[in-house]
C-alpha cells in the first residue's frame, strides 16, 4: 500500500490504536506485525527477501562481534555480500547483461545473454544500505550487535521508512526500538502535522507537476527547447516535493509512534553551492555515502587529486545506487564533477567577486549563488529524468539551441502565452496555476523556516492562528490534491 492511499490511512489508524492499546513491553511486536503486513501488501513473497537480508545481517553481526582481525574482516565482507546479493541480482544483473550483450554485438561476438523479467522489490536499495550500515558499525566497534531478533527485524522492516528511507543508523534507531514509548500527545500531534505537510507536497505539488513532466518527457521529440527547459525546472520541484513529501510522511508517521528518524531534507534549493546542496538533499543517503565510502577512501585528508578521485567515486556509487542505468551514473558523475570543479575554481571565482564588488552586496551575491546552484542542479535532473543518455543529450542540445533564440524574441508576457505554455506542458491553465501557486506557498514557508522549523514558529502563536494554518493545508489538499490516478513515489523504484 502507498502512503497516498485510503488503504494506508485505514492501516495507519488501526496500527496506531493497536500500538497504544498494547502494553509497552509488546509494542515492538505490534509494529513488526504491522510492518510485515505493510510490506507484504506490495508483493507478498518479497517479504521473504527482506527476512533473508534480516537473518543474514543479524547472524553475521552476532558472529562478527566475537571475531577479531582478518576473521572479523572476512565476516564483514561475507555479511555485506549476503545482504547486498538480492540488490545485485534484482537491480543490477539485467544492466550488466544488457551492457555485455551490447559489447558483444559491437565486437561481433556470438553472445546474447538472457534478460530476466521481474518486479524490482520496493525499498531494496534502502533496506540493504541500512543492513550494511549495521554490519559496518559493528565491525568498527561503534555498535553492539542486537541480540533480539524481533527488534532487529523491526530495525530493517519499520514500515514508515522501509520503502524509501530515511536510511536509519543503528546507533539512532535501535536504542529507540529497545526502549518503551509512553503516549505523548504533543509528539503525536507534531508527527501528524509533519505528515500533513508531506501530503501537501506530494498530492498538491508533485502529483500535479508529474502531469507536465510526464507529458513533455514522454515525447521529447515533439517539445520545443523552452518547453523542455520549463518541464525540467518543474521536474526539479516535482522530485523535491515527491521525495521530501514522502520523507515528511515517513518521519511524521514514525514520530506518531514515538520514534525520531533522521531529517532527509533541509530546504535544498536555497543552497549556495553544490556541496551545500548535497548536505541538504537526501541527507540520510549523503551521510551514508560520506561515512561508508568517502571517508574510508580517505575523505578530504589526502592530496587534492586523491580527494577529487574520492569525490567522483562517491558520487559514482551514489548515481549507480539510484538506478542501473547510464543516465544515473552520468548524473552522479556530473554532481561529483561540479564539486571538484568548484574547488579548483575557488580562487578565480573569489577574484571575480571582488573585482565586480559583489562581496559588498552580500544579498545579491547570495541570490546569484543560489540561482546558479539551482541551475546547475536542474541540468543534472535532465539525466535523472531522461530515459537514456542519448535522450538527455538531445534535451540539453535542444535547450541550448532553442532557448537563446527564444530570448531574442522575448516580449511582455500575455495571457495567451500562458495558455499556450499550459497546453504545451499538457496540463491546462488550471493545473499550471495551482502548481505555480502551491510552489510559491511552499517556498514562502521555506523562507519562514530559515531560522527555525515552521512547527516551532507556530507553537508560540495563538490557537486560532495555528488551527487556521492547519485547516488551510487540509483545505488545500482537499481542493487541489491530484487524486485521480494515484501516483507512485518516484524514489520507490530505487
Amino acid at each position, binding site marked *: 500500500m502507498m502512503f497516498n492511499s*485510503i*488503504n494506508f490511512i485505514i492501516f495507519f489508524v488501526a496500527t496506531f490504536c493497536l500500538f*497504544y492499546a498494547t502494553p509497552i513491553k509488546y509494542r515492538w511486536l505490534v509494529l513488526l506485525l504491522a510492518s510485515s503486513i505493510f510490506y507484504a501488501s506490495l508483493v507478498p513473497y518479497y517479504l521473504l527477501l527482506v527476512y533473508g537480508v534480516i537473518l543474514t545481517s543479524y547472524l553475521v553481526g552476532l558472529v562478527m562481534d566475537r571475531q577479531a582481525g582478518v576473521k572479523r574482516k572476512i565476516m564483514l565482507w561475507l555479511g555485506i555480500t549476503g545482504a547486498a546479493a538480492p540488490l545485485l541480482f534484482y537491480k543490477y544483473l539485467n544492466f550488466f547483461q544488457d551492457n555485455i550483450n551490447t559489447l558483444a554485438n559491437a565486437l561481433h561476438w556470438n553472445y546474447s545473454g538472457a534478460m530476466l523479467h521481474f518486479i524490482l522489490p520496493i525499498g531494496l536499495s534502502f533496506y540493504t544500505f541500512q543492513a550494511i550500515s549495521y554490519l559496518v558499525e559493528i565491525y568498527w566497534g561503534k555498535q553492539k550487535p542486537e541480540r533480539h531478533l524481533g527488534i532487529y527485524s523491526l530495525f530493517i522492516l519499520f514500515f514508515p521508512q522501509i520503502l524509501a528511507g530515511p536510511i536509519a543508523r543503528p546507533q539512532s534507531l535501535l536504542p529507540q526500538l529497545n526502549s518503551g514509548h509512553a*503516549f505523548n*500527545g504533543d509528539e*503525536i*500531534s507534531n508527527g501528524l502535522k509533519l505528515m500533513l505537510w508531506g501530503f501537501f507536497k506530494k498530492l498538491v505539488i508533485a502529483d500535479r507537476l508529474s502531469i507536465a513532466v510526464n507529458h513533455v518527457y514522454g515525447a521529447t521529440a515533439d517539445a520545443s527547447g523552452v518547453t523542455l527547459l520549463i518541464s525540467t525546472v518543474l521536474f526539479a520541484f516535482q522530485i523535491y516535493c515527491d521525495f521530501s513529501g514522502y520523507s515528511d510522511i515517513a518521519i511524521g508517521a514514525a514520530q506518531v509512534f514515538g520514534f525520531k528518524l533522521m531529517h532527509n531534507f533541509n530546504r535544498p534549493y536555497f543552497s549556495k553551492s553544490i556541496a551545500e546542496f548535497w548536505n541538504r538533499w537526501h541527507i540520510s543517503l549523503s551521510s551514508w555515502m560520506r561515512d561508508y565510502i568517502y571517508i574510508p577512501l580517505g575523505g578530504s585528508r589526502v592530496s587534492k587529486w586523491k580527494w577529487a578521485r574520492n569525490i567522483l567515486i562517491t558520487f559514482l556509487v551514489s548515481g549507480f545506487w539510484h538506478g542501473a542505468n547510464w543516465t544515473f551514473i552520468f548524473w552522479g558523475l556530473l554532481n561529483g564533477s561540479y564539486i571538484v570543479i568548484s574547488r579548483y575554481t575557488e580562487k578565480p571565482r573569489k577574484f571575480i567577486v571582488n573585482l565586480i564588488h559583489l562581496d559588498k552586496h552580500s544579498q545579491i551575491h547570495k541570490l546569484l549563488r543560489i540561482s546558479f546552484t539551482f541551475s546547475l542542479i536542474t541540468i543534472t535532473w535532465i539525466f535523472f529524468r531522461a530515459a537514456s543518455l542519448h535522450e538527455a543529450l538531445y534535451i540539453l542540445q535542444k535547450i541550448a539551441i532553442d532557448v537563446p533564440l527564444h530570448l531574442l524574441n522575448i516580449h511582455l508576457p500575455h495571457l495567451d502565452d500562458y495558455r499556450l505554455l499550459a497546453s504545451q506542458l499538457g496540463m491546462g491553465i*488550471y*493545473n499550471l496555476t495551482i502548481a505555480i501557486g502551491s510552489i510559491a506557498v511552499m517556498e514562502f514557508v521555506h523562507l519562514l523556516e530559515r531560522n527555525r522549523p515552521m512547527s516551532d514558529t507556530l507553537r508560540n502563536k495563538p490557537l486560532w492562528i495555528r*488551527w487556521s494554518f*492547519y*485547516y488551510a493545508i*487540509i483545505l488545500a489538499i*482537499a*481542493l*487541489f*490534491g*491530484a*487524486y*485521480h490516478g494515484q501516483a507512485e513515489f518516484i524514489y520507490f523504484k530505487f
Partner: protein
Amino acid sequence: MRNFAVKTLLFCSPLLVLALLFNFILDGYFGNPLNWRPFEKMEWILTVKNQNFDYAFIGSSRVKYMVDTPMIDRSLHVKSINLGTDGSGFADNYLLYSSFLANGNKVKTLIINVDPYVLDSKHSFGYPFHDFFFLPRLHDENVSQTVKNISGIKKWLTWKYVPLAKYLEFNEKFILSFVHNLKDQDPQRVIERYENNAGADFITNVLNEPFPDRDKDSFVFDDTDAEYLLKIVTLARGSGSNVLLYAAPEYQGIEKFQTGRSESEARAKKFAGENGLTFLDIADKDIEQDSTFFRDWLHLNATGTRIFSQKIIDALK
C-alpha cells in the same frame, strides 16, 4: 491521552460538520445536470423530459456520431433520439437510460449498438464508466449499486460514507465545472443543438488514408459488460419497449490489429439468442470498403453516417 483525544475531537469536529454541509450542498448543486460544465451530451440526456419516442439509439461514440436521427425521422415520419455518448460502456448507458425513463420519457423501440468494443469496455475505452458524473446521485439505489459493481466496493464505501470524499477525488472536474459555470455560457445553446439534431452529432473533418496503425486489441467478452447490456434490455422491456441490436460498421482491415474478435462476436450472438434478441441485418461491405466514409478506423464521417443511416431506415421499414 484524554487531553489528546479531546483536542483531536475539537479539531476534527468543525471539519466534519463542514464536510457534511458541503457534501449536502454539492450533491444538490451537481445533482442538477444543468450545473455541469462542459454541458455536453450526457448532461443533455438528463434534461430531456416527458417525451414519447418511436426509436432510441444507445451506445458509445459509434452511436453518437454514426446514427443520423433527424434523417431517420424525416424518412420514416417518426420521432427518434440518439442517446450515444463518447467513450461510454453499458454501465454508463444503463444509468443514463434509467434516468431517461425516470424523467417520464417513453420509447417504443430501443436500438443498442453491440460490438466487441462495448463488450470489452475496460480495454476499449480510457474511462468506460463515468462514475464521477453519477456520484452526486449516489443516494439513488440504482446508481449506488452500479457504482458498487463497477468501481468496486472500496471506492463505493469511501464515496458513500466519507463526507466529501467523492468530490475530493474528482476535485478538478467539480472545481472547473463550478468556475466555468460562474463565467460561462448558458447551456441553452447546447440544448438547442441536440434538440435540433435529435441527439445526433456529426464528424465533419475527414482524414486521409492511410489511417495510422492501431494498438493491438485483444478482445475478451466481459461478463460485466454483458450483465449491464442485459440490464438495459430488461429495463427497456419492463417499460414496454421492443429491443433490437445492431453492429456499427468499421473500416475494412481493422481485424489485422485484433485478436479474439470472432470469439467475442460469437458470444454476442449466443447472448442475443439466449435473451430473445435479434441483430438488425445492416452490414454493408460498400461502406466498410470506402475510406472516404470514415474519419478513422471506427468512426464514420457525416457522409458515411448518412449512407449508414439509410441502411438503418431500410431495415426498420
